[in-house]
């Protein structure tokens, strides 16, 4: 990059997560094509450090900071430092908050609703379902809330809500499912907040031979698509449009560089359901 190229700092606590990595890579690629100097920093789940990283980034006065998938309520200190240094912060899949110019996200409520709808379709609109979530993650939490509302509306019983351990979500969900199957003979579906626990659930169901139980996930990761193609328990996933998200953020930054502030505080982009039937 030529000297004087706009510097963009990307910070995230979740780079070990495939979706995060995916969208960050896409954004980086777009940015570099536009001649920006993009740096990426990960804190492996540590929010205190994430604040530190935003502060450090801010003190270097980049053209913009991009926060990928971090809960902004825990980042007031970093966001304040960015504000003090007049560095705009754009968020990917985080949330609206003071100090964030705009948040571009897959619409988590939409993801929740669409995935719930897919599961309802798979189980024929009635029966018992279980939900696998991870509340400390705000996006996942929002999805789960929307899905729950959808199930309640359809009159489907949510027999249990499980907390998927991170790290190790696949194996964790697999064990949870095995135990769940032992106590719930009439289970018809499992809703997972993202694809990895859905994969674990699928494997447990397959091993138990209860092939009638349907599973849905969210994210549209490659392995999920592969599972769906097998026409096994993994019925559907809702793909987040990371290309669109990355592009939108890049466009907002381009505008910002041209002196145009974003018109909205949040841009929520819908997801696409990928089901066996589609």
């Amino acid at each position, binding site marked *: 990059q030529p000297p004087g190229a706009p510097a963009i700092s990307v910070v995230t606590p979740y780079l070990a997560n495939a979706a995060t990595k*995916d969208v960050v890579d896409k954004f980086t690629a777009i940015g570099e094509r536009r001649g920006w100097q993009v740096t990426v920093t990960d804190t492996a789940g540590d929010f205190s450090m994430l604040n530190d990283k935003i502060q450090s980034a801010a003190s270097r006065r980049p053209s913009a900071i991009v926060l990928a998938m971090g809960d902004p309520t825990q980042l007031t200190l970093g966001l304040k430092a960015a504000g003090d240094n007049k560095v705009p912060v754009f968020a990917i899949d985080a949330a609206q908050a003071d100090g964030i110019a705009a948040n571009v996200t897959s619409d988590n409520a939409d993801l929740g609703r669409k995935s719930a709808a897919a599961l309802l379709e798979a189980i024929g609109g009635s029966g018992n379902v279980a939900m696998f979530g991870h509340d400390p993650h705000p996006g996942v939490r929002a999805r789960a809330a929307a899905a729950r509302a959808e199930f309640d509306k359809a009159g489907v019983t949510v027999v249990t809500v499980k*907390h998927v351990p991170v790290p190790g979500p696949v194996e964790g969900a*697999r064990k949870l499912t095995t135990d769940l199957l032992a106590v719930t003979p009439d289970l018809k579906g499992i809703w997972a907040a993202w694809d990895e626990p859905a994969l674990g659930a699928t494997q447990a169901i397959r091993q138990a031979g209860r092939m009638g139980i349907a599973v849905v996930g969210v994210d549209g990761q490659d392995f999920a698509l592969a599972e769906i193609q097998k026409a096994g328990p993994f019925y559907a996933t809702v793909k987040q449009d990371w290309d669109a998200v990355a592009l939108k953020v890049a466009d907002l930054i381009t505008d910002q560089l041209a002196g145009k502030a974003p018109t909205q505080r949040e841009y929520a982009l819908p997801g696409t359901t990928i089901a066996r039937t589609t």
Partner: protein
Amino acid sequence: MTAGAGVRPALRRLSGAPLGLLALIALFTILRPTVFPDPGNLSNLLEHIAVLTIVACAQTVVMAVADFDLSVGATASFSGVIAAQLLVAGWPTVAAIAAAMAAGVVIGVVNGWLVAYLKLSAFVATLASMTALAGGSLLLTDGSTIFGLPDDFLLLGQSRPLGIPTVVLIAITVGAVTWFLLSRTAQGRRWHAVGGNAEAATYAGIDVGRTRLLAFVVSGAGAALAGLLLSSRLASAHPTAGDPLMLTSIAAVFIGLTAAQAARPSVAGTILGVVVLGVLDNGLNLLDVNPYVQQILTGLIIVVSVGLSRRRGERP
């Protein structure tokens, strides 16, 4: 003065040990009389603890030499990633497995060398290799999950000859081999002697450095095997899949030590620890309590069940 005086306290010590476990089993059997003692559930339970058993046995060896290995989880993740990448790149299954196991052995040698010859504390050395390996796994996979592994590789973790899962058979074998190594061979004596008093071991003509290094090699190999089974079971390799094994494997060894009031780690104690953790997890899942309450209960029950297993007596 007869041999009885020495044997009896040893027996007493052993008989006290599984008390907490029995209480746990009784509790879950009462609360879930149809589901918990069901053979299907028990077989599930065995399958769930198989991978941990392997890592915990390997950890027992390192802890017998009074060190510990924080890198087992990262090694397991790494080995799974290596195997998966080679398989996806078209290597034959056997070659990929061999390469992953070799990686585990190399990691063990490096850890062992750092601890035994560079004299870093085991915590620092294995924390460093844990960090580096975690970075390595992420770099190799680019943070994502590798899938599409060939069917013959999946047999390792998913087949059930005669209805018994292969992973369980492998875990039993690893347990038996480790038990045999630690308590029936000259090498096992060396490990225990170095762990008990390294200086005395030196005076007795034992090569302390080599003994210590070998223990890390065992744990590296054990962790690599666990990683292979994990990725075969999950039909995919994730760069952090093995990470939870670190803390739980050490916990299993310590629970065994504490419950059996033993002066040194033993495979029997470790397996007791693994089973306690496994039963607890399975039982609480079956009870379907709130997942957060389940964590609270896990903590409390570990204390109570391990405490129950103890009689008044010395600290291990």
